[in-house]
C-alpha cells in the first residue's frame, strides 16, 4: 500500500501530470510532517501510517504552494471531503489538483478526476464517531452554568495564536473577519471577551462547512477542544435540517422547525 502510494507519486511526477506531491514524511522525534515532493526519486520519503492525519488540503489554497505548479495531495477521507468543499466554494477547480486517495482501510485509490473523488467521498456517511458524539453529549447534559464555566476555563488559556484558523483548510479567507477593524467585530486582545467572540465566530463561519478533520484541535498549543463547537454544529445541522444541503446556511426550507421564535 505504501509502495503503491510512492509509485503513484512517482508516476504523477515523472509523467509531468503534477509538479508537486504533497504527502507525509518523517518529522522531528516521532512526529510526521508535510512533505512537498518535487522529484520522482524523493517519493520514497513518503510515509503513510496512523500518525499521518494532518489535513494537507490546507496547502491547496496557499499561494507559494500553488506557485509550484499543479499539486497532487495524499488524501484520507477528511481531506477528500475538504477538497470537495473547496470545489463547492470555488477555491479548487477540476483539473487543478490531483488526489492520491487513501481509503478508510488504507488502500490507495485512483481517481481520474475530482468529480469521481467527490462521488466516492459523498458515499461515505458524514457523521461523528461514537466518542465524538459522547463528548458533545457530555457537555449537552451539563447545566448552562456548568457549560459556561467549562468554556471560560478552557478558553482562558487561548492566546489567539490562530493556529486553529491557520491549520484549517476552510479558513482560507485572505482577510479574516477578526482582522476587520472597521468595525472591529471581534475584540483583539486574548481576554475573556476576545477569546469567546473569536471562537463563536470561528464556529459559526465553519457551520455547514466543517469536515471534522480535527486539525484545529491538533494545532492548538493548549489542546483546547475547539472542535467540540464545530461538532455540535454538525450534529445540529444533521438533526435540524437533515444535512442534505450543500451549505446549510444559504439554504432553507419554508418549514424549518424551531421552537423558540414566538
Amino acid at each position, binding site marked *: 500500500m505504501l509502495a503503491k502510494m510512492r509509485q503513484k507519486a512517482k508516476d504523477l511526477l515523472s509523467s509531468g501530470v503534477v509538479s508537486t506531491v504533497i504527502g507525509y514524511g518523517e518529522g522531528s522525534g516521532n512526529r510526521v510532517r508535510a512533505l512537498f515532493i518535487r522529484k520522482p526519486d524523493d517519493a520514497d520519503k513518503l510515509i503513510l501510517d496512523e500518525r499521518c492525519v494532518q489535513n494537507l488540503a490546507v496547502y491547496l489554497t496557499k499561494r507559494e504552494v500553488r506557485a509550484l505548479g499543479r499539486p497532487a495531495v495524499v488524501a484520507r477521507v477528511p481531506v477528500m471531503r475538504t477538497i470537495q468543499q473547496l470545489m463547492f466554494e*470555488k477555491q479548487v477547480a477540476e483539473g487543478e489538483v490531483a488526489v492520491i486517495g487513501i481509503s478508510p482501510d488504507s488502500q490507495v485509490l485512483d481517481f481520474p478526476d475530482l468529480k469521481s473523488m467527490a462521488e466516492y467521498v459523498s458515499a461515505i456517511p458524514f457523521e461523528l464517531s461514537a466518542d465524538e458524539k459522547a463528548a458533545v453529549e457530555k457537555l449537552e447534559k451539563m447545566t448552562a452554568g456548568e457549560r459556561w464555566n467549562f468554556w471560560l476555563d478552557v478558553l482562558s488559556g487561548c492566546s489567539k495564536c490562530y493556529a486553529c484558523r491557520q491549520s484549517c483548510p476552510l479558513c482560507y*479567507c485572505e*482577510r479574516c473577519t477578526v482582522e476587520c477593524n472597521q468595525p472591529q467585530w471581534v475584540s483583539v486582545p486574548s481576554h475573556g471577551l476576545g477569546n469567546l467572540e473569536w471562537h463563536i465566530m470561528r464556529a459559526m463561519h465553519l457551520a455547514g462547512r466543517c469536515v471534522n478533520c480535527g486539525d484545529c484541535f491538533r494545532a492548538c498549543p493548549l489542546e483546547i477542544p475547539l472542535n467540540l463547537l464545530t461538532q455540535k454544529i454538525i450534529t445540529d445541522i444533521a438533526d435540524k435540517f437533515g444535512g442534505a444541503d450543500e451549505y446549510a446556511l*444559504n*439554504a432553507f426550507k419554508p418549514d424549518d422547525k424551531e421552537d423558540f421564535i414566538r
Partner: protein
Amino acid sequence: MSRIGVFICHCGENINGTVDCAKVAEAASRVPGVSHSVDYKYMCSDPGQSMIKEAIKEKKLTGVVVGACSPRMHEPTFRRACAEAGLNPYLCEMANLREHCSWVHEKSEATTRKAVDLIKSMIEKVKLNQPLQPIKVPVTRAALVLGGGIAGIQASLDIANAGHQVIMVEREPSIGGHMSQLSETFPTLDCSQCILTPRMVEVAQHPNITLHTYSELESLEGFIGNFKAKIRNKARCVDEKLCTGCGMCAQKCPTKKISSEFNAGLGMRSAIYVPFPQAVPNKPVIDKDHCTFFQKGKCKVCEKVCPTKAIRYDQEDRIIDVEVGAVVLATGFDVLGTDFFPEYGYGRYKDVINGLQFERLASASGPTLGVIKRPSDGKVPETVVFVACAGSRDPAKGIEYCSKICCMYTAKHAMLYKHKVHEGSAYVFYMDIRAGGKMYDEFVRRAIEEDDVKYVRGRVSRIYEEDGKLVVKGADTLLGHEPLEIRADLVVLATAGVASSGAEELAQKLHVSYDSHHFFAEAHPKLRPVETNTAGIFLAGACQSPRDIPETVSQASGAASKVAGLFSQEELTREPLVAVVNRTAPPLYSTCTGCGLCMPACPYQAIEMEEIRTRDGTVVKVAAKVNPGLCQGCGTCVALCRVKAIDLQGYTNEQIYAELMAL
C-alpha cells in the same frame, strides 16, 4: 471631523408632551461631532424645514439627524429638504422619537433618556453615512392587472387609455367580477350590468389590453419597472380562435345540473358553459370536474355539435411569460361563509339566503328573471327580513370590522323588494345605519320613509322554521329590548365581505404585506392608500378592504394614475440602498474570496461572479458582484459573508455597529 446638525421636533405636544425635547437637543449638542442642535415645534412644517436648510448652509453641516416621527413617515420629507439645501439626502437620518418613544412611554426621565439614546445612536450612524446617488433602471411600460372586476376593468382602461400596455388576468372564465352579479346599484338604482357590460366590452376590444381570462398568476419576480410574471392560462378545452360563442355546446351538454357560481347557487349551468350571457370573452370553458367525458371517458357531445370544431379535450394549461413594469392588484373580495352562526340556519333552510343571492333574485338576468321568488317553493315572499351585520362587527363569532357596503345594499334590497312586491313587508334588523356618502343617507331615508321598510334596531338571536315560515327572533333595542318575533317567508343575511380566497397565497407570491384578515395592506392608510409596501405594486378595490363601487372605481383610477405616472419616465430612480462587494487595493483587489456562497442566498439572483483583471487583461481574481438593478437591499448576503466583503449601502456594518455601540 463631522459637523452634524441635530433637529428635535416637538410634533406639537406629541413628542414634547412626554419627552423633554430641549433637554434632548442640549444633550445632543454635547456629542462630539455635533455642531448644531435645536428643537422646534414642527420640524416638518415649512419654517421647520427652512431651519434645517439654513443650518446646512450656514454651518456647513456634513450630516443631519432629525428626531421626530417614524422615518417611515417623514424620512423622504427631510431627505428632500436636505437635498434642496445641497446636502446629499442620504446624509440625513431620523430618530424615531414619536412612535417608538413618546407615544409608547409615560412622561418620565427614562423616556427622555431613551430619546437621547436614540438621537446619539443616529448621530453615530450618520457620521458614517456616505453620500449616495440614486440608481437608474429602465421601466417596462406595461402593467399587469390582476382581477377583472370593476376595479381591474377601470384600472386597465385608464392605463390603456394613457397609452400603455395592459395585461389583465382574471381567474374566472369571464371578467366582470361581483359587479356583474348585482341587480341594481345604490344610490341611483341603475342597472349594474347596463353600466358594466359596455366597460367589459371596451376592455376586450382595447388595442392596448391583452386579456387572460380563466388564468392565474403563477409567479412574479423582479422589481418595480422590471417585473417578470408567469401567467397560467388554464385549459378551457376550447380553441378560443375558432369558437364563435354560438352557445350550441352549452345547450346540448347533457350535464346541466351544476350549481351556477354566477347565480350564487340559485341557478344551474352545464358542464361546458359561459358564466353569463354577457360574458367577456363569450367563450365557454369545460368544467372538468363535472364533464361526463372527463369523469367517465365518454360523451363528447359538445365536440359533435360544435359547428367550428373548436373543442379541444387535450388542451393543457399554458404558462405565459410577460414582462411588466407595474402590477395592479384588483382581486376583489368574497362573501363570508355562514357556518359560524348556525342559529341563523343558513344552509339548513333554503329560504335563508345571503345578500349576493338576493342580488341574483332581483336581477333581470337572474334565475327568476328578476321576480323575487323564494328558493324553496318559488313563491313570492310576503314578508322578508333583512339581517344587517351578519358576521361583521362581531368579534366574538364573525369579524370585528365593518364590511361597509351592507347597510347600503340592505336598504337597496329592501327597496327593490318593495318595488317588486308592493304589498309585502320588509324588515331590516340593524345595529347602526352607516350611510356616509353622497346621496347615501337620503337613499336609506327613502327606503324607510317612502318604501315603508321597517327598520328594527337590534340583533337577531335565532331563526327557525315553523309551519312553512321562518321565525325570526330578535329584540328591538329602541323599544326597551322588547322581544320581537317576525314570521317571514324569506331571510336575507347581509354577510360580511372578506378577503378573496387565495389572497394570502397571492400576497406571498407578490411579497406584499397583508393584514390579519388577509386584505392587502396599503403603504400608508392615509397618504399612500393605493400603493403597497412593495414598490411598483398597487391596490384597487375590495382586495384592500370591503368597499362600494364608487370608491372602488376612484381607487382604481388612482392606482392607474400611479402606474401612468411611473410609466411617464423612461428611467426609474431607485433608492441606492443596495449591497456592494468591496474593492480594495492590489494585491487583494477585494476581500471577497469568491466562494460564491452568497449567490444562492440572494432572493433576487442579483449576485454574479466577476473576473477582476489587470490592465493587460490577466484575470487576477474572481469575486462576487452585485447587480444594483436587481438588488433590493435585504442584506441577507451581507450577514452571510464571512469576510464582510459585501456591505449594504445605508445599513453598512460600520453604521450599524456605530449605532449599536452608541446605545
